């Protein structure tokens, strides 16, 4: 299905989602429905389970209980079907320090089946979009945190995912970087987005829904 294509099926459907780490509960009975092409903003203090929620949606964590449907795939059983349709931008850029920016993107492109000329063209397009063409051959270890974040955003959208999972996407970006990133992960591309942020003012205007989590992972009624 093309990003943003109209359908009755929600992009995300959560019911009674719970995740425990030993005796500590990170998410406790979270439920929501998010339509395709919509943006969900997840807010909450540190330790409220925002990142845990994002990692469950990214198939990197299994829920302890509850139902999770993402793009028609039931998690965790159908995680293998969902991978490749999601773009995940977490706290870590997921880039190898000893490889250059271009080599990192080539690595990720190939893992997502983007090989040869189409892969190279996509990488060049993204590097240009975030203003990194001239820094593309530098090792990631030599780049600033902001430059790494730009590359991480390229990595996140490299394979044209339908669902973007963004954890503090603006972190380390300067004003120019935020503007450039907006073209890739901002609203308007018709993709479903889940954005985790500490800053409600930054993304609230773009959000179709807001999920507020409190310490202990409970959703707070809006």
């Amino acid at each position: 299905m093309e990003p943003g294509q109209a359908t009755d099926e929600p992009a995300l459907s959560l019911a009674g989602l719970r995740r425990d780490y030993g005796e500590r509960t990170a998410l406790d009975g979270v439920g929501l429905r998010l339509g395709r092409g919509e943006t969900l903003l997840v807010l909450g203090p540190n330790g409220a389970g925002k990142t845990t929620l994002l990692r469950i949606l990214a198939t990197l964590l299994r829920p302890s209980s509850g139902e999770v449907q993402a793009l028609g795939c039931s998690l965790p059983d159908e995680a293998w079907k969902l991978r490749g349709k999601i773009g995940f931008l977490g706290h870590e850029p997921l880039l190898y320090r000893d490889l250059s920016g271009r080599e990192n993107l080539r690595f990720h492109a190939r893992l997502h089946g983007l090989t040869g000329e189409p892969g190279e063209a996509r990488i060049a397009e993204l590097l240009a979009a975030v203003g990194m063409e001239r820094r593309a051959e530098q090792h990631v270890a030599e780049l600033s945190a902001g430059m790494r974040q730009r590359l991480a955003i390229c990595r996140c959208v490299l394979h044209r995912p339908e669902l973007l999972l963004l954890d503090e996407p603006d972190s380390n970006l300067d004003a120019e970087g935020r503007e450039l990133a907006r073209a890739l992960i901002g609203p308007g591309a018709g993709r479903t987005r889940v954005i985790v942020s500490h800053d409600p003012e930054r993304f609230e205007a773009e959000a179709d829904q807001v999920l507020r989590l409190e310490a202990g992972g409970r959703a707070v009624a809006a």
Partner: protein
Amino acid sequence: MTPSRIAYITILAKDLRAELRTLQSLPAMALFATTTFVIFRFGLDRTQLSGSLAAGVLWATLLFAALLGVNRLFVAEREEGGFDAIRLAPIDRSALFAAKATALFAYLFALELVVVPIFALFFLGSAAALGPLVIVLLLADLGIAATGTLISSMAVHSRARDLLGPLVLLPLVVPLMIAATGASEPLFAAGGVGYHRFGSWLAVLSLYDLIFLLLGWAVFDFLLED
């Protein structure tokens, strides 16, 4: 080309490129092995070794040098988010096992290209044993690569990984080491290269390799789950 094969080649190429650039594993392994041979040479006060003693010195040294490579095998994946990146991709995670095992196999073989001639120079009267020894080295390397990759992928998530890896790995490779020294012993015989039970030990080595390659392939997907 299938997605799994592309993933295998991509991960392997990344690992080899990173190692060639940073030289984090191989030089340390080679230096360790060479130093150990020097210590054995002066510690035993012998200029020539033969039979089981020669086989024991060679394989004990290679095994402990291999541990250095095993310990570093998944460090980039843990510290730089490689595990997450690979888990996010629509690929068979067994490709990661295959790529890492191949990389470790390549490190071991490269190590042996350097240090086995040094071993021969220090302890053997002739180089006649080195030809058939290559078969033993290749089979033993395959076993160490399969077992080492499996254990390293588990240990890397632990805070005590530097301790846990060797503690779990060493008992598991005891059968491999018995077979490797058993196969090498007649090759280093004092009277010249022999082949007593050489084939039987090669069969044991092959069986060990097969078991751990299949085991790694089968369980690796589960090991990457949270």
